[in-house]
Structures are given as C-alpha cells and as structure tokens.
C-alpha cells in the first residue's frame, strides 16, 4: 500500500513540498507570515500560467521556448496601444491576448504543417518575437498604467483574519488556480487530453489511430500563445512596466516547473497537478532561501541542483514503472 502511494509522483512532490515547508519554518521566523507568502505568489502567476499549456506541449514531446518572448511582446503591444494610440486599457489588453494567440498560431502552424521540430521553430520565434518587442517599443520602457489595470497584478480577491493579522489573497493567484483547474480538466476529462498523451507516447500510432495530429499540435501551440498573452497582462501589471527585455528566461521557469512536476520530456505522460506542485516547489525554495538571507549566487546553484536531482529521480521512477509492468 505504502509502496503504491509512493509510486504516485504527486505524492512524492507533495512530501518534498512539506519538507521544504517544515525546513524553512524552523530555519526562519519570517517564513510563516502567510500574508507575505501570498503576496509573493503574485510573481509566480505568469510562469505558473505558462507552465499549464507547457505541460501539454511537453506531453506531446514538444517544447515552446518562445513563451517568454511572447509575454514581452504582448506586454509591449499592450503598452504601446495604451500610451501611444490612446486605446482604452481593456482594448489594449484584448489586443495583447490576440497577439499572443497569433504568435502561438505561428509556432503551431510552422511546426505542424511544415513538420519542423518545435525546438527549432520556437528557438527562432523566441528571437523573432523578442525582436518585434524591441522594434515596436523602440526599446523604451512603458509604465503609468491606470489603476484598474494594476488590479490584475496587485488586487486582492478577499482577505481574512489569521490570529488578528489580515491576510490578503491576491486576485492573480485566483486566475492561476482557474488556469490550473481548466488545464487539469482538459488533460484528464476530454479527448484533447487523451489525444495529447497518445501523440506524445507514439506519434506514428497516433496518426494511424486517426488522431488529427496536425490540428492538435496547431491547437496546443496556439493555446500556449493565448495563455502567454493572458500571462503578459498579469506580468505587466505586477511589475507596472512593459519592457522589451522583460520575461527573460520565463520559458525556462515554466519548463522547469513542468519537468519537476513529473511530465516526461519525451512525451506521453503528463500531470497538471504535478506541474502546480513543481511550480510551488521552485517558488517556495527560492522564496525560503531569499528569506533566509542566502545570497543570490547560491540560490541559483541550489535551484540548479534541485533540477538535476529531479531529472535523475524522474528517470528512476520511469524505469521502475517500466519494470513493474
């Protein structure tokens, strides 16, 4: 029974999370300040949202390296339309989301129709979208967004009292949780999820099984662009600035959460809950180390070690699962 439970990767990840929690709680008195922790979670929202479609993409044995650039580009489009063309902020937001979707559609169509590996396609569009962001912003940072827009990143859904101290729950965290639930629902309960896993497991078999492989691929990358556009709203709002060099490496943060979450990089196996746990593990680790006063250089090293350990562990789990079959 215990052995079976430990075979569930989510359980293992959850135990890791608990260990981190316990460790940091004992290590630093500030860690259990729930309000601060929730406030800090605002910065996880953009990478967290991106990690959900990234779970699907990696489940098909693909990858999308361009999402960071998409976030930067959409932020700039939002900012330029609002500042230079006096668009209402809602219109500018809609345009940003549409641009993200279009960018995702470019990734999807090139990789599915022309059958170019997504690694190559998105490596190219990573530079392309970043270039567009620099081009249309003329490398100028855009800020002074209206208060209504600030709500996305800085607003609170509700607050409650914990031992007399108010605790605010960020609205952005709510948006992330909605994304997670939708992602988990699609992966587990719909044909899209089943087809995605089938495609990742064996693309040739998927084709013979009459799965619309090209449409599926196109759809997943487009959806990733869409989520990138949405994430850019939260990202731009929380930092209050649209910059062409924003969101550098955001794609890697998203990919790291997916991989730690147990989604196999070679495709065929995925878990949205695992991705969420992966995101929390990386986030809590960075937060806790920063709170403990560990210098940034070492934080980077420790997170790197965590990734390697996870990769090894995942491989070991996969082999064990293979043997027991």
């Amino acid at each position, binding site marked *: 029974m215990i052995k079976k439970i430990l075979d*569930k990767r*989510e*359980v293992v990840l*959850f135990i890791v*999370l*608990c260990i981190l*929690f316990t460790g940091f*709680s004992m290590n630093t*008195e*500030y*860690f*259990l*300040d*729930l309000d*601060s*922790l929730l*406030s*800090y979670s605002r*910065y996880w929202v953009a990478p967290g949202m991106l990690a959900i479609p990234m779970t699907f993409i990696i489940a098909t044995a693909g990858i999308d390296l361009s999402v960071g650039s998409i976030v930067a580009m959409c932020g700039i489009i939002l900012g330029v339309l609002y500042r230079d063309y006096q668009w209402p902020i809602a219109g500018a937001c809609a345009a940003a989301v549409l641009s993200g979707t279009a960018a995702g559609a470019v990734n999807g169509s090139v990789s599915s129709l022309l059958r170019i590996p997504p690694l190559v396609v998105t490596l190219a569009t990573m530079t392309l979208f970043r270039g567009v962001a620099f081009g249309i912003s003329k*490398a*100028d*940072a855009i*800020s*002074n967004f209206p208060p209504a827009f600030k709500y996305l990143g*800085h607003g609170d859904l509700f607050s409650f009292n*914990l*031992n*007399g*101290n108010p605790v605010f729950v960020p609205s952005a965290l709510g948006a992330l949780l909605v994304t997670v639930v939708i992602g988990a629902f699609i992966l*587990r309960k719909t044909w899209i999820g089943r087809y995605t896993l089938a495609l990742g497991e064996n693309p040739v078999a998927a084709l013979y099984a009459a799965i619309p492989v090209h449409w599926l691929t196109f759809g997943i990358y487009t959806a990733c662009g869409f989520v990138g556009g949405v994430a850019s709203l939260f990202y731009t709002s929380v*930092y*209050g*600035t649209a*910059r062409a*060099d*924003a*969101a*550098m490496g955001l794609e890697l943060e998203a990919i790291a959460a997916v991989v730690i979450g147990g989604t196999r990089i070679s495709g065929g196996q995925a*878990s949205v*809950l695992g991705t*969420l*746990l992966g995101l929390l593990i990386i986030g809590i680790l*960075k*937060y806790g180390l*920063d*709170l403990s*006063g560990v*210098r*940034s*250089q070492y934080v*980077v090293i420790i997170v790197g070690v965590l990734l390697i350990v996870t990769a090894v562990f995942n491989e070991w789990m996969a082999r064990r699962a293979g043997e027991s079959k």
Partner: protein
Amino acid sequence: MMKKLFPWSIAGLGLAMVLAGCSGGGNGAAPDDGASPAGDAGSAEGKEIKIGVMPKLVGIDYFNAAEKGAKAAGEALGVTVDYDGPVEADVTKQVQLIETWITRKYDAICVAPNDPDAISDVLNKARKRGIKIITWDTDSQPDARDFFVNQATSEGIAHSMMDIMAEGAGPEAKFINITGTLTAANQNTWMDLMETYRAETYPGMVNLSETPKESGEDQARATQVAADSLKTYPDLQGIFALTSVALPGAAEALRKAGAADKVVLTGLATPKSMKEYVLDGTVDKFVLWNVPDLGYLTVHAAVAAVKGELTEGATTFNTGRITTSRIEGSEIILGDPLVFTKDNIEEFDY
C-alpha cells in the same frame, strides 16, 4: 473514481496543513507584528539596525567595490549590513528580493534599481511598512524613495567625458555611444546632457548613431559591438562607453584592432578593469567616482534616515570619511567625478 480524486485530495489536505502551520507560527509572531505599525521609529532605537543594500547585479568589480564601502560603513556605525542582488541586471528579480526583504523587516533598504518604474510599486509598499528607502547609483521614481544617493551630478559626468573627447579627438570628432540597456536611466540622462553640452560647446562634433549601441552589461558583447562599430563607421574618431563593463569591453576591441591611435575611447569604468588599457595607451583618460565611498555614503544615509537624523529639507550631511557630499532636495551627492589617467590609476584597487 477514488483513484482519480486521490491526487487532488492530497493537494487539499496539503493546503489545509499549510494553513494550520501558518496559524501556529502566526501566534508566535503576533507580538512582533503588533508592534510594527506603531513602532516605526521605536524599532530603530531598541534593537540593532538592519540595512539591506542591493546593487543592480552582483559579481562585477563596480558593485564589489561598493559592497566594500557599504560593509565598512556598517562596521563603523555598528549596524548590520546585508548586501545581495540579482545575478543578472534584472529588475524583476530585484522586486522579488525586496519583497522578501520587506518580510524580513529591514529598517532601511538601499537599492540601485534596474528600472525606475518597475521597482517603484514594491518600494512604495516597503515605505508603507515604515521601511526607509534609499536609492543609490541610479534612481527610482522620486516619490518611491526617501533619498537618492547620487554618485556625482549627471552634468559633471557628461561634461568631463565630452571634454576628454574634445581634448583627445578634437572639437570636430565623429563619435558613437555604447550604453548598457536602452532603458537604463543613468546612461540616458548622461547622453541627453552630453548632447546638450555638445550643441553648446562643441557644435562641430557629430554623433554618428542617434540610437546608442546596446551592450547589456555584458563585457564580451561590448567588445563585439565596438569591433562592429569600427567596421560600420570607417571615419569613427571617438567612442563613449557608458557602463563599467562596456568600457573595458570596448577597450579590448580597440586594442585587438590596433585602432587606439585613430579612435579615442573614454567613458566610465572601475580603475582595476581599465588599468591594463590605460598603461598600454589604449585609453588615455576616463572618469568615475569613488565607488567604495558611494557604498559608504549610502549606508550612512540609510542609518541617519532610520534614526531620524536625516529628514527632508536637510542641506548638509557629513559622514566623517566623506567630506565632499552635499544635499540637493532629496538627493545626496557624493562629489565631483574623478578623472583617471596613467598617473593616478594605480592608487585605486577596485
């Protein structure tokens, strides 16, 4: 059904445990929390003062030198100085780190922001919690901080660099600028002032590239950019390299191309990184301020602000070690820029 629900129930259980853990810890922390709204000034007197100092990034000469000064001030004043920053010049990492510093209840946070706007929300949040905010090296939005410790007036820097260029390459020199990032506030201010000063004093000088070349706080990239510029502009006579990594980077390119006789290079960098290029004649003169003094003055200002000795409207501020500083509005100015040459460069070890 049970099987599918299992991971989710685990997650729910987890959330419950997290909340339980927090409420337990919250009890212990409550007296401390209760004191913070009322005890902004009180906290400074009773316990040891804790100052957080954040550079634009860690691991480069310039900010290592500032760290030495900041730590020295901490020792001199008997306060704790923690010095940390992002490993890349990334404002989002600074925002996240400051967020944790707010939770850690620093008495003052001193930051050299990578973006004046993106840093301001989190600084305002810190100020609402009674934390004194000092910006140093480069400013945030003025209403997001208490004081800005400015290394030198921007005019002073812009003018002395222009003068060095005119002296070396003549009053009709054709030049370009190499900056860090195109959004870097310091560099943009200097370039604006250089342009104004050029138009007034050296109208014959020509900027060959209205948009400055970007080197992204990356020395190798600065070398590449400078080498490319030598090819792109065959009649180039002068290069201003405006960051502490762009100048040695550009000097390397000039030396490799053997173009030191044809092109005058100046800018800002630490003396240590430029020593070899000055001694071998690639670069004659460049400017900077005393960087350890900048770190020293910053911590000094932070401590004075926490103790309530430094308030808006003060006009003089003396640290003992630094006598040239003065206050203009909410800016504390370190002094005039230093010009480094073959004769004095070996006196400085940063």
